[in-house]
């Protein structure tokens, strides 16, 4: 895998004069590989809605695959360890395990078809080099071809391709959310003592409470359709799943344009007053609820508010 990464790096160097767009997309492959093929440990800041959260992330490759540990450094102590689609949470001194089969499918992060979708929907260009967390970074800008999605800007470590900074901007070039490494160690001697400690401690062994609702669902094809998706969003998944606090299974339909995704959830309306119609957001993620034909429809996506509204307003049932 290392060899593959270097191979790609070489390909990029050789391709330097082949045209801007192609370079950026090759770079994206490197970025996607680097996230999984590099040992690193660092502190990053997540800034959204005038808030800031700091976390430490450690990522190492062992013989049996990748291990990733995320710790919150402010607020209540939260820790998450991810390995092979399994997730352990260590929250308020209590260890719980999360089942998630879908997470297996996350590697490789960037599939060839995603790259082609991406180049259809965004103008990718290099935007110079900058320094982030003490490293030189190549900056890439992904400008959408319409105003129904956000601008994405990424800073990738010039040597390894590791992402050092990610910003999501709106059409006014205002930052909607961003992730920035403030301190980062790439390679070298990284603490691995936590890897063996992922199993639940003895005292909690009696009653492990699984963290819902990350449960695998069954593939389905309901008759719910969306009339006004932004161009380039393609259906990637449709499942029926159980969700916490919901009696009936919820249908989830996912569309993606390569960089961001829109999920549509359909469930019978149980008249819960909390699920009032309306828009809410966290950083780049916008969520819109609406009751339609006795069904509660929820649209979630890393797209501007107007897009989730447009998508929801065009949802209709195409069956009998």
């Amino acid at each position, binding site marked *: 895998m290392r060899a593959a990464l270097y191979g790609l790096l070489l390909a990029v160097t050789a391709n330097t004069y082949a045209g801007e767009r192609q370079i950026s997309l090759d770079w994206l492959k490197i970025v996607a590989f680097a996230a999984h093929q590099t040992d690193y440990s660092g502190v990053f800041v997540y800034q959204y809605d005038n808030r800031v959260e700091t976390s430490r992330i450690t990522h190492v490759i062992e013989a049996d695959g990748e291990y990733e540990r995320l710790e919150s450094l402010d607020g209540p102590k939260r820790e998450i360890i991810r390995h092979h689609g399994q997730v352990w*949470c260590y929250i308020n001194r209590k260890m719980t395990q999360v089942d998630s089969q*879908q997470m297996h499918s996350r590697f490789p992060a960037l599939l060839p078809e995603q790259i082609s979708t991406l180049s259809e929907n965004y103008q990718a260009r290099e935007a110079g080099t900058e320094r982030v967390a003490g490293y030189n970074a190549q900056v890439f800008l992904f400008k959408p071809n319409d105003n129904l999605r956000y601008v994405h800007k990424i800073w990738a470590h010039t040597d390894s391709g590791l992402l050092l900074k990610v910003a999501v901007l709106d059409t006014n070039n205002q930052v909607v959310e961003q992730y920035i490494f403030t301190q980062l160690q790439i390679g070298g001697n990284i603490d691995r003592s936590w890897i063996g400690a992922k199993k639940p401690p003895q005292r909690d062994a009696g009653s492990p409470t699984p963290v819902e609702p990350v449960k695998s669902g069954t593939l389905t094809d309901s008759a719910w359709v969306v009339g006004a998706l932004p161009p380039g969003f393609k259906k990637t998944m449709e499942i029926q799943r159980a969700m916490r606090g919901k009696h009936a299974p919820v249908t989830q339909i996912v569309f993606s344009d390569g960089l961001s995704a829109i999920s549509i959830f359909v469930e019978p309306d149980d008249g819960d007053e909390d699920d009032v119609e309306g828009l809410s957001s966290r950083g780049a993620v916008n969520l819109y609820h609406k009751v339609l034909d006795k069904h509660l429809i*929820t649209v979630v996506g890393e797209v501007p508010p107007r897009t989730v509204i447009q998508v929801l307003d065009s949802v209709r049932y195409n069956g009998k």
Partner: protein
Amino acid sequence: MKQEISALMDGELFEDEAENLLGRIKRDSDAHGDWEIYHLIGDVLRQPEHVHCDLSAKVRKRMQDEPIVLAPHGRAVKQKMRTVALSAAASLAAVGVVAWMSLQIGHETVPQMAMKQPVLRPASAQIRPKANDYLMAHHEFSPRIIDMSGGASYIHTIAYTNNEK
């Protein structure tokens, strides 16, 4: 600085930049001079028949010329004070009218932007903890190109889901 002032007058600055710049203009007399000259130029270009040359300085000077009342309370003095207050109010009103006029004339872009803003980012609430389940379900299938953000939103969402339990 001059370019920024010009951008501010054209309504091209973001709110926080504009506030910052206005603060600097207040402190820096040179910048304040530029600010006034630019407005004067704008006024002359648009409406040559109504030129307000350094009105604010004149108002300030007139205000300084107004007597300061140090005498103890008394009916006559009260009367006088009211007059002072009224004249001050009148001056302020005049400034207000000028300011309003220049807004009407010089900042066509301002109302436009104000109208555009809500469309771009409608007033939306924070996602409530109850809706976190949708977010987690969504994150599972989001493209994982930018894995760093995936991890961060994941810890955020999962942590809040559990805190709320």
